[in-house]
């Protein structure tokens, strides 16, 4: 029998054994705490334990499980809330009360619940890995498709009648080429650290529409893409992630609260059950799965939570869904790696982080993608990872290494957050490499003018940035009127367009069409005013009419479903400016 030799926080060691394999799941101690093998040599096996080791003694048994750390995949995942190793928190609360105890053994998915299953294959059908053999409605918006385990294939020799089944009931039997019969239930197991396979990667060319102007218009993300949201504390990382989880047009959201606040998870639970998804008309919880490993829960499970989340996402991708993962925050995950690495006395690289930090990060982000599945469907996993740089310094290792593996970088800015400009995404420091990939989509689905308009909008901001250098030194009064106009127009872009109010019923989610119309109106204002200024009309005459303020408030004044009002406003701009010109020439 293998027994505990040494204990140091979440790291325990077993001596003189060859029974364990790398990344195998084990049960440690009398309480049978779940752990994972992280190092093996002929002298000792090192195990990280996903729970608190208080009270453990040397000499307690350690049992191998024979399989790597895995999750159960089947109906019952969506609308649930799990801890970092897929244990349902509601069931844990039923067993141990408000505070989480140790060594609680609960099955990941409800084994007694009956699902309304439709078997979609018949005897004689040839199935291979990924083929769909049954379907059941999991929530009002997600139909669960049971797929053959990727490593299995064979001919169907028996199917159950359509009807109500539990997750462990056999609904189909297949015989493989060696003549072995496999019982297919509604669920399967998959190791969390191994990416699920797919047929091929497809090119990325569809946006993940989020309804957030600064993202959709200026810094878009594609379905199957990767984005990082770095920002110091209080800059709105969590707020941005919540907004995306609420409004983006993915089919399913996997929200990983990795080492963050307990109250935030409670907030998501509460808020998402009240909020209605504008596309399906159903509660947002019907498309959301939450993984909560709050900052005071065991650190090793924090490391696992990221992998658990992405594995769940890949499983639904294989069914042909588009998934968006919010990982809040990847820095806490990196710190968990550092903490475990320190306990193992590994040689640290930068700032105490282990040397394998970059490879772990890249492995994680590479699991995103837009793919064609074995069963012919297309699905995608989009990863949006928050980064919490220490000291708000973007040159620290986690931010820098993340930057290398993501193609979209939304830098949150303290100065903007202090001025309560939300989302506080800094348009100068951020970038999206997807703008070119998505050009075609915007041209076909929104307007051919979308891309040129965006370019002009960005130019106004860039121009303003240059002018501000001068203004900071000598004030804005000395600038000529056309440059003053750039500054005024940039203010309209910043306050009226980029800034978005998450608490306003219309402004919290803005469809692409309205984003486009807003751009058009702002540019119309700029062009019309510039024309007048070039004719010698003082800019102050035009700003005095209050037309700039009118345009700033279009986000509130024009409801999302009354886009006709934009034409009216465009006329108003033209009339106001020509009125000023007339009055001016009259005076002359």
């Amino acid at each position: 029998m293998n027994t505990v030799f040494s204990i140091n926080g979440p790291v325990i060691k077993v001596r003189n054994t060859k029974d364990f394999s790398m990344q195998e799941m084990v049960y440690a101690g009398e309480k049978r705490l779940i752990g994972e093998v992280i190092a093996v040599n002929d002298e000792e096996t090192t195990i990280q334990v996903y729970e608190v080791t208080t009270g453990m003694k040397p000499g307690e048994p350690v049992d191998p499980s024979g399989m790597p750390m895995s999750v159960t995949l089947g109906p019952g995942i969506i609308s649930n809330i799990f801890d970092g190793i897929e244990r349902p928190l509601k069931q844990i609360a039923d067993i141990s009360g408000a505070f989480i105890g140790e060594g609680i053994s609960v099955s990941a998915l409800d084994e007694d619940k009956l699902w309304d299953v439709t078997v979609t294959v018949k005897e004689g059908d040839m199935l291979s890995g990924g083929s769909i053999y049954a379907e059941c409605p999991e929530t009002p918006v997600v139909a669960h498709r049971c797929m053959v385990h990727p490593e299995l294939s064979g001919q169907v020799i028996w199917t159950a009648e359509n009807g109500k089944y539990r997750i462990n009931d056999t609904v189909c039997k297949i015989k493989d080429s060696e003549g072995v019969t496999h019982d297919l239930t509604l669920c399967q197991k998959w190791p969390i650290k191994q990416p699920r396979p797919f047929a091929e990667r497809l090119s990325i060319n569809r946006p993940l529409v989020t309804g957030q102007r600064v993202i959709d218009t200026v810094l878009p993300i594609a379905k199957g893409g990767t984005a990082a949201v770095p920002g110091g504390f209080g800059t709105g990382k969590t707020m941005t992630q919540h907004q995306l989880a609420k409004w983006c047009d993915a089919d399913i959201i996997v929200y990983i609260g990795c080492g963050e606040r307990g109250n935030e998870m409670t907030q998501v639970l509460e808020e998402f059950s009240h909020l209605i998804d504008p596309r399906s008309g159903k509660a947002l919880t019907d498309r959301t799965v939450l993984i909560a490993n709050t900052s005071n829960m065991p650190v090793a499970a924090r490391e696992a939570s990221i992998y658990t989340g992405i594995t769940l996402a890949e499983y639904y991708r294989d069914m042909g869904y588009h998934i968006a993962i919010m990982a809040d925050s990847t820095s806490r995950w990196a710190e968990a790696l550092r903490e475990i690495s320190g306990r193992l006395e590994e040689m640290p690289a930068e700032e105490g982080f282990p040397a394998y930090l970059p490879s772990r990060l890249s492995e994680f982000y590479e699991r995103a993608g837009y793919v064609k599945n074995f069963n012919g469907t297309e699905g995608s996993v989009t990863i949006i990872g928050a980064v919490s740089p220490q000291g708000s310094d973007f040159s620290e290792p986690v931010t820098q290494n993340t930057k290398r593996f993501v193609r979209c970088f939304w830098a949150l800015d303290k100065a903007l957050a202090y001025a309560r400009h939300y989302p506080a995404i800094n348009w100068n420091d951020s970038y999206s490499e997807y703008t070119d990939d998505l050009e075609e989509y915007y041209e076909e689905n929104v307007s051919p003018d979308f891309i040129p308009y965006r370019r002009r909008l960005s130019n106004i901001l860039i121009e303003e940035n240059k002018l501000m250098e001068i203004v900071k030194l000598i004030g804005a009064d000395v600038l000529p009127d056309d440059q003053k106009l750039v500054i005024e127009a940039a203010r309209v872009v910043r306050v009226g367009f980029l800034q978005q109010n998450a608490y306003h019923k219309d402004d919290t989610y803005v469809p692409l069409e309205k984003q486009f119309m807003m751009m058009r109106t702002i540019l119309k204002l700029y062009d019309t005013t510039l024309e007048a200024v070039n004719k010698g009309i003082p800019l102050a005459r035009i700003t005095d009419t209050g037309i700039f303020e009118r345009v700033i408030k279009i986000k509130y004044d024009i409801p999302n479903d009354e886009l006709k009002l934009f034409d009216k406003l465009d006329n108003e701009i033209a009339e106001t400016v020509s009125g000023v010109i007339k009055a001016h020439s009259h005076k002359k």
Partner: protein
Amino acid sequence: MLQYVGLKEINGPLVVLDDVSDASYDEVAEIRLENGSKRLGRVVQIDGKRVVLQVFEGTRGLSLKNTKTRLMGRPMEMPLSSELTGRVFSGAGRPIDGLGEITAEKYADINGKPLNPVSRKYPRNYINTGISSIDALATLIRGQKLPVFSGSGLSHNKLAVQIVRQAKIAEESGEDFAVVFAAMGVKNDVADYFRRSFEESGVLSRVVMFLNLSNDPIIERILAPKCALTAAEYLAFEKNMHILVILTDMTSYSEALREFSSSKGEIPGRKGYPGYLYSDLASLYERAGIVEGSKGSVTQIPILTMPNDDITHPVPDLTGYITEGQIVLDRGLDQTGVYPPVAVLPSLSRLMKDGIGEGYTRADHSDCANQLFAAYAKVQDARSLASVIGEEELSDMDKAYIRFGRMFEKYFLTQRSDENRSIEETLDLGWDLLSLLPISALDRVDDKLLGEKYHPERAERFI
């Protein structure tokens, strides 16, 4: 029970025992010296028969042969009962007020257990502190953890006392609240200041004090907040009381942790602090909140002094990532005589958005707060421009901002330490100050509300 005679190694607060057969991780040990005195310790590492103990009261006077050690077979526990209020304890949770031991109703592990997110109740009820800058701009919510980021010599203690005195944390009856106060590495006279202030405001009988002064052992300093929070959780969730926990000074706590970590020979992270500082601080700060099915609540106000006033130092930095906002004090404001010197822009309450507005404070609260923030941010821009080109050269708009900034600091931020403003007073004051600016500058508020609240004639009293 087995006794182990002598030690194998002594290193800082750590001692090593050899040939131990039955140690369990994290259990408590009692070390008896030849002269009869007793010290407590805790198992922090086990390698087969070699056991590392952390000694709470320090290792002075210990030698390799003058000790007898017993392992107690249970983790560090604290006796709990409703008699806790009005008592004073050491950092390790032993009574030091001469009133004798606590008759325990139960014992609880001081490390606590993580609160299940599904059992939490989202905090929504605001606490009126009577301090304008906090109530209007960084509202404290019952069940929140809202730290004060301060610097040496700033008035954080005075502010904490004012909050304790004025905070309407209790329900209407007023019977069910208590303050848990943990001092970690603070000076004797600071602890005394708190004691006197509690006494003067008549709350001393409702205060549970844990004192670890700056000359007390560092291991007890690490235990002090854990004991305090164990007491707080017990009173809140089992006795249904509303508890306000004040932890001061978290920087001293973190330094104690660093000292302990380095004597254990651990690999240091940033500025020598251990790599697990985040997890460790989180295990304290996360012990705030409201639990489904209990009437009580734990609200935390940790106080920390930023070394060299640097907000990016690991302690304030990691704290800010865990807590639900922060109140930042500013030396510049303090020097110009503003009390409380709350730096408005970096201060934030994350739970504020759901605990203010109609039904909680007043419908116009969030508009007023947003506009004050936006306007005060412009003040900073105007000031930095003025420092280059001089105030005379500024545009009229910038001049208006400069004037607004001055009046805002003088009338809104500044208040007496015994001045208790109602939320109505505070918000009205905010609107009146905003009326110093031209109406076109108020771009965060819709026209209808502006029509009601914009009164330049009321702003005249400030000039």
